[in-house]
């Protein structure tokens, strides 16, 4: 189970989780006699043990008969303090929460540790809620010393009872833990610690129902059963059922724990197992799907190999043992990729992994005659996509998109939106488009040249690409530098002579000079030094020219898509990035 990120399962709860009922020696004997089941340590036949075994994970089983929310809260914080936050993040916490009304977490100086005090208020003749009896549970202290019931009987129990009669109110006591339990869950959430819970009843949830509505994901409730006792009770799976009425004990029985564990394992798998979502063009779409669609290049390549190769998404899926949801679409533009994401992002959960394979910036969309978007693949033999739009027009637009790297700013903004919308941080971007930047030949339009008051204000010269500097040099008659002493009137004079004037370092650091130039009536067009393509590539996994089909097949298949080896290279790079960045995986 490569996706399972936990090395420990920590469990806390009451007898429902601790194997209550199966700890009674007479019941153990009856299990052996009637069902030939050996129950040694009853915790070994409880649902947490089965879950931990299924996921091959170490188990810390701190549930105890009589334990309630107060003990659970205290011990969970203690455990986290003990192991540290980092280790707690590698632990899956499972909580079974019972009403504290009968379950007091009580410190006892005599044993230097807490004991569980179970209180009953069920005197038939009493309507005032007086304590009818108390029982202090057997306890093993943190330093391993065991104290049985008998140790507490008599003096200690009497003192505790007297105290509780005067200084304890079960309703007030319960109320105290409403907030503290919500506080614990908030703490776990805030620190990225994974947990799930089941509530025996909703006493502790009701006052903060609005808060719990948002925690629905954490609830292990299924088929109307919110806790194991309900599941085992309604399905005839209690100790009493197992032992054919030998006892009246209604705790979950041997089979109850086993079957409950099976259901919880499935729920945990559904909730925690990440899915791989991939968005992109033909490089993302699987070879299998290309073959079904009879894409000539894919069919030819598969035929040559003698099998259908896996693309990077298929490789990642089998490497990580997770399902892939592939939204790749051959020939699509980045607009379609983004659009598909916007339609589907709600499917993506906190643990999921998302990979975007951006396509060439030259592709874009127009509407077709049936009022749908259609992606334009420029400079290709594809037919016109709308009778009103000439191929020459779409080619011109595509050329514009390839010539100016400002179009990559758009993709950069898509990435910002994607990151904001996603619950998961496991999102990776790549592209097959080469990472070099090509600049146009000119920076002046005819209209700009006709304007005798217009100069180009270029921002940070020192931070510019050499190619861009060359472009500026080639396209200017005179370059002024705002970082040096300059005469603005001289600039105006040059501009009015019709010279191509570029002012470099015209940025916020030189505000005064900019204002002076404005005052004397100079007009300007701003030219940013930023290489948007370079900036965009910073969001991607490190660029690499992956092997293409043409190269791998020694020109036998004339196609530039990534080959099987290319996809393996890409999946290896992605896997490295996933391992590097995804602390909650692998």
């Amino acid at each position, binding site marked *: 189970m490569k996706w399972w990120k936990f090395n420990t399962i920590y469990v806390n709860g009451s007898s429902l989780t601790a194997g209550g009922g199966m700890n009674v020696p007479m019941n153990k004997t009856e299990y052996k006699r009637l069902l030939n089941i050996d129950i040694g340590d009853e915790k070994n036949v409880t649902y947490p043990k089965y879950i931990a075994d299924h996921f091959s994970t170490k188990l810390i089983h701190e549930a105890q008969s009589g334990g309630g929310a107060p003990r659970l809260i205290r011990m969970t914080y203690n455990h986290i303090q003990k192991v540290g936050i980092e280790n707690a993040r590698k632990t899956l916490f499972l909580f079974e929460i019972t009403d504290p009304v009968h379950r007091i977490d009580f*410190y006892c*100086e005599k044993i230097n540790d807490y004991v569980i005090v179970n209180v009953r208020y069920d005197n038939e003749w009493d309507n005032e809620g007086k304590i009818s009896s108390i029982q202090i549970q057997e306890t093993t202290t943190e330093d391993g010393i065991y104290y049985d019931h008998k140790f507490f009987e008599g003096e200690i129990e009497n*003192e505790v009872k007297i105290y509780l009669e005067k200084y304890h109110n079960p309703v007030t006591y319960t109320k105290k833990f409403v*907030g*503290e339990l919500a*506080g614990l869950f*908030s*703490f776990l959430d805030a620190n990225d610690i994974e947990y799930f819970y089941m509530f025996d009843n909703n006493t502790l949830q009701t*006052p903060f129902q609005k808060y719990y509505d948002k925690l629905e994901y954490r609830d292990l409730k299924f088929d109307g059963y919110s806790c194991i006792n309900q599941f085992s009770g309604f399905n005839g799976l209690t100790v009493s059922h197992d032992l054919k009425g030998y006892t009246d004990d209604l705790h979950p029985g041997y089979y109850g724990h086993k079957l409950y564990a099976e259901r919880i394992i499935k729920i945990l798998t559904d909730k925690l197992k990440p899915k791989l979502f991939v968005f992109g063009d033909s490089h993302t779409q699987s070879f299998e799907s290309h073959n079904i669609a009879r894409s000539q290049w894919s069919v030819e390549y598969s035929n040559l190999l003698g099998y259908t190769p896996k693309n990077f998404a298929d490789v990642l899926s089998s490497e990580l043992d997770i399902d892939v949801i592939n939204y790749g679409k051959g020939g699509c533009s980045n607009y379609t990729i983004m659009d598909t994401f916007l339609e589907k992002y709600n499917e993506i959960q906190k643990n999921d992994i998302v990979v975007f394979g951006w396509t060439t910036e030259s592709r874009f969309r127009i509407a077709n005659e049936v009022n749908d978007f259609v992606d334009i693949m420029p400079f290709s033999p594809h037919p016109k996509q709308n009778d009103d739009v000439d191929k020459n027009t779409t080619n011109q637009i595509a050329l514009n998109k390839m010539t100016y790297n400002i179009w990559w700013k758009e993709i950069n903004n898509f990435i910002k939106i994607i990151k904001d919308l996603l619950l998961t941080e496991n999102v990776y971007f790549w592209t097959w488009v080469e990472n070099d930047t090509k600049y146009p030949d000119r920076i002046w339009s005819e209209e700009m040249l006709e304007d005798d008051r217009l100069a180009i204000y270029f921002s940070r010269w020192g931070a510019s690409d050499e190619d861009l500097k060359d472009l500026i040099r080639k396209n200017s008659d005179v370059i002024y530098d705002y970082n040096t002493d300059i005469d603005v009137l001289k600039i105006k004079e040059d501009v009015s002579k019709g010279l191509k004037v570029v002012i470099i370092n015209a940025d916020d650091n030189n505000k005064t000079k900019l204002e002076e130039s404005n005052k004397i009536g100079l007009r300007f067009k701003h030219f940013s030094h930023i290489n948007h393509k370079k900036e965009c590539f910073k969001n991607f996994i490190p660029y690499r020219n992956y092997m293409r089909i043409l190269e791998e097949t020694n020109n036998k298949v004339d196609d530039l898509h990534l080959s099987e080896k290319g996809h393996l290279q890409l999946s290896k790079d992605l896997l490295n990035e996933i391992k590097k960045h995804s602390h909650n995986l692998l």
Partner: protein
Amino acid sequence: MKLKNIHTIYCNGSSLSAGGGLYNIDVKEIYKNSHGVEWDNEKDVTYAKYISDYFGCKLVHDAQCGSGAPRLIRRTYEYIQKVGIENAKKTLFLFEITDPIHRVDMFCKEINDYIIVNVRYDDYSDGRLSDLSVVYSYSPNDNPYSDNFFKGKIESDVLKYIDNFHDPIVYSNRFQGDLVGLFTFLDKLGIQYYYMFDNTKLKNPFDEVYVDLDLKHQLIIEDDVYTTSHFCHKHKLTIKDETHDYTEDTHPGYFGYKKFSEIAIDFIKSRLETTLLKTNELI
């Protein structure tokens, strides 16, 4: 000036926030005679009152002399339950947190409410309990029970309990998690709050969590000044200082609270959005 979307200030803490010492009649007399200032309820001359007045907010002043983190945690959750999450989002919470080691929050059936049990262990070298006092409140204001009410039977019961079922260290440790849980709960709900810690004992086990929390929620007054007590000691603005040693009481004085609140107001203004509109126009 109003705080945007905040109509209430809720304050919880110990005597350092509740005006401890300023309820004594003789101390009040001194202030009246020497400084010409007087008050009925000492909570009216604490920083929480000045801050709420400045921002035109309703004040829920829940600080109490002798109380510590356990009561603060319990009462804050109770307050949120009472007003509901939506109203809590329109409340600015101010917390002054003291070590629970001497401050036990205990329910008492006799009064059907919680009492404050202050315990001291500093008279004996072996850490034995040396002093215990049980009160509903140390202040005569809003206090239906005289100090004598708890003397005798109740104090003796409590003493027995403390002897047999209480360990100050274990008791303190219990609230380390609960306190950080409260703060993350407030964060999760988008509730605004600032805190000041008298010392770092309650923070230490969760140091790494407090790195982020401190950045957002620590009320910063001055370098190395984290509470009214630190501030008033540093600037000689305790009751003792302000009454020219009439008393040994080193709780924050009248002018200490005033000065402290001025800095706290500036801090809050720098952190929270303010508006000149009336609060009720925004809600």
